[in-house]
């Protein structure tokens, strides 16, 4: 552990505030299918259950053929199958975040930011458009606020072509996201590999894939997949950046893969999975950082290597629904050559690992109690003063989730962080959040 408190604060601030695009439950899908939210979600939004995974694997194309309000517009010579309504969802979120971390960025004695206690109303809120697009094609577009000073909004999206194959669906997903990470084109388990699908709001204090960064950040990629009730496999290529203006990566792309097997056992579903990526992408610094390319550009080579395992078990204990998720990030490295040209947080040099276990039990259907333990280790000597993931810690979390309605939820989460550096005192994070999706 060889870094400064400043680095810790910067990291924490970045991790806390860079999740604006993470989709919550999307009532647009409810409108499309005519089914209630909990048909697809387990315990609370946005965690998916088996039917939710099935719906996602279909490319969001499953439709209610008896809907009186949402018929399909069919083509004659060329196929169409367009829903008569474009389903739109809004996710509105309000949070209060307070942390006891001691840092003085103002170079005064003033306590600022989340140390002071920060009210975040509408941060991480957004509009979502999508669902079925046509026969065998679905899509989702998100329009969210962007927390950076330079940008107003962030637009992300994915388009999925899906066909029934064997007992499930096979297809392709072309995606571009600001925050949801490499696997977000098609990943439906709640282990944090796809940023929105996790158990705690405080993602980086509870989940290994989120804390290490392997399951979040800007990504643009294409992946092929097959999935059914038991087996899921996917492989694809990704560029760890989002830039709607274009990324001049040429023929370089980082391959990734993921497999998972789900075994139904009585009322339980037990999933064991693995994932990995290794490869190099080379593009101009300006396009990787999200800007337009001009003749002052310099090519930067990004090497990423990461792999790990995850586990999910869901089912009732004494009549109470539970979900346990484990994620073990065995390795997550990022290197850039030349170094120090890029500003994007997920393109900084990194070498870390982590493990997490999260558990939620619902004594009553609308109320969940959750626990988490996260171990995070950094293996890289810091050279940069910005965006540095350079400290080791253990984090213990306790949380409560209450569903006032299926689409209205309240969360309280408390995380105690035990740091190992000797430089920094232990500290806590407190999250109070309310989320409304409609």
């Amino acid at each position: 552990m060889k870094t400064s408190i400043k680095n810790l604060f910067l990291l924490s601030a970045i991790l806390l505030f860079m999740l604006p695009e993470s989709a919550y439950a999307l009532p647009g899908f409810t409108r499309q299918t005519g089914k209630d939210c909990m048909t697809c979600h387990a315990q609370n939004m946005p965690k998916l259950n088996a039917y939710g995974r099935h719906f996602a694997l279909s490319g969001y194309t499953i439709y209610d053929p008896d809907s009186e309000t949402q018929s399909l517009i069919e083509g004659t010579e060329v196929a169409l199958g367009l829903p008569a309504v474009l389903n739109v969802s809004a996710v509105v979120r309000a949070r209060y975040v307070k942390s006891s971390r001691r840092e003085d960025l103002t170079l005064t004695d003033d306590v600022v930011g989340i140390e002071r206690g920060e009210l975040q109303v509408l941060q991480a809120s957004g509009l979502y458009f999508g669902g079925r697009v046509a026969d065998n094609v679905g899509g989702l577009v998100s329009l969210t606020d962007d927390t950076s000073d330079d940008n107003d909004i962030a637009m992300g999206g994915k388009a999925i072509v899906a066909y029934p194959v064997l007992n499930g669906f096979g297809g392709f997903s072309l995606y571009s996201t600001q925050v949801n990470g490499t696997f977000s084109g098609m990943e439906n388990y709640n282990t944090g590999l796809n940023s929105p699908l996790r158990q705690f709001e405080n993602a980086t204090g509870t989940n290994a894939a989120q804390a290490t960064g392997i399951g979040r950040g800007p990504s643009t990629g294409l992946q092929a997949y097959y999935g059914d009730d038991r087996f899921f496999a996917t492989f694809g290529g990704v560029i760890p950046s989002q830039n709607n203006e274009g990324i001049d990566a040429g023929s370089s792309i980082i391959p990734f893969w993921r497999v998972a097997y789900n075994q139904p056992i009585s009322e339980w579903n037990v999933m064991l999975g693995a994932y990995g990526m290794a490869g190099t992408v080379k593009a101009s610094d300006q396009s990787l950082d999200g800007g337009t390319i001009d003749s002052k550009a310099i090519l930067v080579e990004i090497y990423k290597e990461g792999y790990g395992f995850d586990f999910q078990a869901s089912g009732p204990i004494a009549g109470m629904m539970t979900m346990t998720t484990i994620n073990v990030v065995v390795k997550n490295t990022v290197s850039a050559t030349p170094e120090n040209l890029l500003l994007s947080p997920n393109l900084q040099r990194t070498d870390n690992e982590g493990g997490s276990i999260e558990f939620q039990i619902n004594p009553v259907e609308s109320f969940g109690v959750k626990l988490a333990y996260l171990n995070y280790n950094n293996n890289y000597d810091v050279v940069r003063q910005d965006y540095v993931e350079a400290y080791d810690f253990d984090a213990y979390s306790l949380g409560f989730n209450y569903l006032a309605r299926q689409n209205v939820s309240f969360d309280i989460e408390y995380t105690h962080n035990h740091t190992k550096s000797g430089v920094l005192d232990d500290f806590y994070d407190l999250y109070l959040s309310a989320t409304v999706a409609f």
Partner: protein
Amino acid sequence: MKKTSIWFSCFLIMLTFPDAAQAVPGFARQTGLECFMCHTQNQTKLNSFGRDFAHSGYAMSTEDGSQSLIDGKELGLSLPTVLNLSVMLKARWDKSNDAINGKGRVLESKDGDDIDSNRGLYEVYKTSTINIAGRVSENVGSILELREKEGKAIFGGKVITAFDTGNSYSGLAIYSTNNYGPFTGMETYNTGLYKPLRQFENHKLTNAAQASDLGSGAATGVQVYYAGEYLFATVGGYVPVHNSDGIDIGSTIIPFTRLAVEIPLGDMNLVIGGYGIKGHARASNTSFDPDLSGYIPRALVTVYKEAYGMDLQLEGSVLDLSTLLTVNAVFKNKTSLSNPLLMGDPTIDVYGEPEDAQTEAYSVDLEVNPWPSLGLKVAYLYANDKGPHILEPDKIDAKDKHALSFGLDYSFRQNIMFTVEYSMVTPSRLDIANYTDALGVITISF
């Protein structure tokens, strides 16, 4: 943000937005009709019914359609019960060989490496838009478009009031766009005069109105039109700016006109048209470009514009194959600024700028569909930039070229299209080598 970056960004936003909206499924939702009711060959081009629908101000009654109307009692209303939304996603892959920027220099990094499209450019999901469109009330329709550009939200749109005058529509359109050019208010032929309506995705290498920067760019204006069975005529005035905060043009505005006649020829329909723009507008440099605020003293700038040309469209069946031939001849497109220095540093390495330039261009585009879902296309373009580019001599003749292009469109669904195009470009300047450009595009509208 550095000043140069601001300049570069704003120039790109104003001048080189490379794509445009395609089909608007909100109209399909409003009318209950399939996309190809209004579109020919693929979702990017309008047929005669699509032209009628546009001339109606997108307000054709939904009384017999899928959506009912809310009618007023004492005051007219006739509002659809559903606000129709749609999304257009576009993903592109662009790979060129020795392609150049607006100054004739090959797209290279400062270390001499291939960059941008010469390296291979992934644009996912570039220029994607969210549209709110369709009937607003009786005789009134609208399109509102929201897009993201470099993290900024950009609104554009138009409102049209249209009246059925026998076998024709007459109306008035008010519009503001950062992208689609001066004819945005009401233009329905596929000759590229209105940026979204063209045959090739790679518009700069295939269409004269696009290559000469006549049918694209920022514009805010108003126009009246008459659209009969055989005649379309419009006059209006515009300012080559898109600024929702206001444009202090006083009483200056640039007049424009456009006329087209339709002549049925058996199974074919021939459209011959002409268009012209001439005049000047005077406004603050910070109105023309809000990003200048704080970087340069506020001062009045005069933009002078003079352009005219002719276009032709031949549509119908040849050997039972749907065929569309479009020709555009831009005889002159001249734009000049009274004092370019008031618009900032002119030496920024931008890819294109129409100020201080006079361009002529000619193009022929043809698409034939052997099957309803598959179209094959070819295009030829000649462009000649006469400058003078007084402040930037390295731009002289940099855009002069002959370009031959081939392509195909495959409509996987009516609202999902795959496009592949390949262009071979022969620049006129001897110091610029021939270059090629390959483009793959997926367009999804829903």
